[in-house]
């Protein structure tokens, strides 16, 4: 098994609902919780999150697009965070999920150095490293209705941008989506073989809205602009 997520960068609206749902479920989770906040209502609020969404501008105006990129543990096949761990607290399960055993972790931060995705954060109160569990206490939880045996982030996403499943099953929804939409893993050059796949944004139809053309910056134009500037002075 190779459990993981497919995240559709085309439909993600960047609402942070996945991160909030993650925080809510895992804060009360016996496996991962609590997820503390520091100075939550003070001047410099900070805290522990397993999922962070950052927003980028890709391309140049007017051919630009806002890209919302949620990032959590990629549950890498070659997880360097696991191999560098000196205590054996970090481990990879047979189903592919990478977890931290808080009873073994000494809080040296070394695994977070080895992770290129910023997926691991130290719980300053407990002194142990914490990370996405792929909601291991939901997906195998018989007490939940079958439809809810999915990671909290997947259930919460209002844009259905997140899908959970087994990448080793070629017929699973995640495998199909990754295949059909050219799914990619992040920073493949590092060789950690991240399991989570991102679907690139579809090319939007070009609609002429009469936006200003990109200013030309040939040699003549630059000379003219310089001359105009000198005259103004």
């Amino acid at each position, binding site marked *: 098994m190779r459990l993981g997520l497919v995240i559709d960068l085309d439909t993600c609206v960047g609402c942070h609902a996945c991160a909030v749902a993650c925080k809510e479920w895992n804060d009360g989770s016996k496996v991962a919780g609590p997820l503390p906040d520091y100075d939550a209502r003070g001047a410099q609020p*900070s805290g522990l999150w397993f999922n962070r969404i950052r927003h980028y501008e*890709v391309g140049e105006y007017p051919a630009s697009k806002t890209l919302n990129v949620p990032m959590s543990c990629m549950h890498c096949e070659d997880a360097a965070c696991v191999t560098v*761990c000196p205590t054996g607290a970090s481990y990879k399960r047979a189903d592919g999920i990478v977890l931290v055993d808080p009873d073994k972790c000494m809080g040296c931060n070394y695994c977070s150095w080895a992770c290129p995705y910023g997926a691991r954060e130290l719980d300053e109160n407990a002194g142990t490293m914490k990370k996405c569990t792929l909601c291991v206490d939901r997906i195998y939880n018989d007490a939940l209705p079958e439809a809810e045996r999915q990671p909290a982030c997947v259930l919460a996403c209002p844009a259905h941008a997140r899908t959970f499943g087994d990448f080793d099953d070629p017929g699973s929804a995640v495998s199909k989506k990754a295949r059909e939409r050219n799914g990619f893993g*992040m920073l493949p050059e590092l060789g950690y073989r991240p399991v989570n796949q991102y679907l690139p944004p579809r090319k939007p139809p070009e609609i002429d809205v009469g936006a200003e053309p990109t200013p030309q910056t040939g040699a003549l134009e630059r000379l003219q602009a310089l001359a105009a500037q000198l005259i103004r002075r």
Partner: protein
Amino acid sequence: MRPALSVVLFTVLSGAGLGLFALLALVQIAGADSSLSQVMHLASGLLALALVAAGLLSSTFHLANPKNAWRAVTRVRTSWLSREGVLALAFFPVALGYLAARYLGWPAAWQTVLGIAGVLLAWATLFSTGMIYACLKTIPQWHDRLVPAAYLVNGHLSGALLLLALAAVDQKALPAYVALVLVFLAATALVKGSYYRKFGSRAGAHALPNAIGMTAARAKLLDAGHTHGTFLTHEFVFRFGREQATLLRGLFFALSLLLPTIVVGAGVGDPLMLALTAVACLAGLLVERWLFFAEAQHVVRLYHGQQTV
């Protein structure tokens, strides 16, 4: 990377201890006429072990959950951090055995076997310390063969200077010890010079657009999604000025390389002066080790808006 002061202190102190022990044992085993007297040999060896122990202790100060520190020796198969711990722990009994063999006048074969084993363990420990950093593909400035090389030569340079001062206290002929210092001065200048040349003004191989999969377009961060710092910005986004880096590199070269070269070159034989030179060298190495962290850039900075790493 944010410099963890306890780790900076640890690697410099234990490096000096391991270097001092290795050179002390090698000079004695080689049977040099100027090898230290029985008492001085023991004192020097214990000083080396004290430096290593102080370093190991200080490294535990950066642990958030030190009660599990004993588990750090359990993953030697995959983790360089674990290997370093095991090798450092194995070094102590062997090194103590060697010092006892020499002091109590056990047979020469015993002294040689224990001494060589201790030297090999000291080298392996130093190398492992370097590999803790060099094995991380996420930090280009660390993922380089010059990194373990620097840990080895830095440890031996400070060790050679300490040994020179101890030999002066012992009123031994100094030329052999001066030669050792000169060898490691040259080696350190070569390794660190190459390192700064390589990483001084290099454009990073990893780029922000690639990191988010947009290989054909320009990309910039609009919003990092958090109001104030996070664990990630605290740990990985350490910023300081380029001028400051140049100044600190200069300070390292002056204290650790230039000053010892002048003192040794001038033929100074005063034990106090030589001891002060060794301390100055160690201070310079602290600066070097601090810079090693401060100048290292983790690829997660791409996701926080840095264009290349």
